[in-house]
């Protein structure tokens, strides 16, 4: 008996549609988040992450509707992030069927949001989503960024992660902006540092390119592994990742 390591596909959604090309076999509509979510559920995904990248807040209602449709059909945990600014935003997402809500930029601007949301809804549903890049200005060598890695937040990433956990974040979605898109493997140095600093689950994100990339992230201390494009384009399957992890005696579902 033991807890299985989680493998999680991430879907970027704009105005209720999946963006970034998705090339998943046998889908009638590859841009439909619900259809993709269903396919991933059947393919062995342990959870799903929806990242709402809509620039306009008028698209938020569309996102809620998408979450409702997904939650009505897919009975695995759903995390939704992107544009969450207030406890009311968290409440609306949870009531629409999200199980966990990712807080990123708004948390950096207003750390009390994390405290208040975790007090109201429980730390198990508040995920600190943090986009990290290397910086010589930061004491730990890593800084937290905003706007998808384009702007510095001025905060040391490790210090921010520790503060967010103290404020009640129950999980860290740790996205390495340096590794993101490189397909050269997860950011082992970053995962190792964060693992040493906090005792909440870590979802490692950014850099997955091939099945062999996943196990080193587990060794570094990740409790869950997230990837987007390699799954969407069918370069590797969730089953292949789990089989590789299994060969290293990592427990998977």
């Amino acid at each position, binding site marked *: *008996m*033991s*807890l*299985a*390591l*989680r493998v999680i596909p991430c879907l970027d959604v704009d105005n209720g549609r999946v963006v970034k090309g998705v090339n998943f076999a046998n889908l009638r509509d590859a841009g439909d988040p619900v259809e993709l979510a269903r396919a991933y*559920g059947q393919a062995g995904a*342990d959870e799903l992450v929806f990242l709402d990248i809509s620039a306009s807040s008028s698209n938020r209602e569309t996102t809620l509707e998408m979450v*409702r449709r997904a*939650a*009505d*059909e897919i*009975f*695995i*945990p759903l995390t939704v992030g992107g544009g969450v600014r207030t406890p009311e935003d968290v*409440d609306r997402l*949870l*009531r*629409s*069927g*999200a*199980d966990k809500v990712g807080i990123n930029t708004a948390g950096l601007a207003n750390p009390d949001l994390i405290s208040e949301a975790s*007090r*109201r*809804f*429980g*730390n*198990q*549903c508040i995920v600190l989503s943090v986009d990290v890049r290397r910086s010589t200005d930061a004491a730990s060598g890593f800084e937290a960024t905003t706007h998808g890695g384009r702007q510095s937040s001025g905060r040391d990433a490790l210090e921010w992660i520790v503060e967010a956990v103290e404020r009640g974040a*129950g*999980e860290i979605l740790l996205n390495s902006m340096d590794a993101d898109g490189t397909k050269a493997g997860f950011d082992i140095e970053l995962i190792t540092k964060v693992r040493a600093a906090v*005792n*909440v*689950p870590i979802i490692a994100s950014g850099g997955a390119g091939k099945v062999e990339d996943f196990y080193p992230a587990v060794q570094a201390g990740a*409790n*869950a592994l997230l990837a987007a494009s390699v799954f969407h384009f069918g370069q590797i399957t969730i089953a292949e990742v789990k089989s590789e992890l299994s060969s290293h005696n990592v427990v998977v*579902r």
Partner: protein
Amino acid sequence: MTDVVILDYGSGNLRSAQRALESTGVSVTVTSDFEAALNADGLVVPGVGAFSACMTGFNSVRGAQIIERRLAGGKAVLGICVGMQIMFDSSTEHLDTDGEQANWTGISQWPGVVEKLQAKVLPHMGWNTVTSPEQSLMFAGLENERFYFVHTYAVTRWTLKPEGAFRAPLVTWTNYEQDFVAAVENGPLWATQFHPEKSGPAGLRLLQNWVDTL
């Protein structure tokens, strides 16, 4: 048609539980209405977040009375996650928080204390296996399946022994660096520490097993 009420006494995702139960062919209402909760064929007591906050919400809808009356009449109740924890005597969660909210007393359907797990990484979050008794109705057809857990506190010691005319409840265990109670079947009162509504096809089958008893 069999009808199930999900007791609405706080915030959180009740939609998944509603849809998952509907998929078993019952009609489901999410409400805090006392009479509706009393009279439904089955009552689900959900619960996420802090124990004390849940108890405050639960008390505000006269939850304990609802449970007592239903169980006295042999009517089914299913507690999920914190909805299971509040069936025990108390929680030690106040020792780890600011202590302002002192609602750490449960409704004592079973003796036991809900305590913080000792694991290195908390919450216990993800899919875990369980060990259930052979006679279990809840886990019929679900041997070797995994269920989705997300919690930091749990009941690690089960002290209730069979006595006189009472049959001992069936207790299902799981392990995350230590053993703790994953589920209990006790006549009309069932409860799970994990989330069947988030546990894929295995979770839906478990809910079907419960609905079949209604």
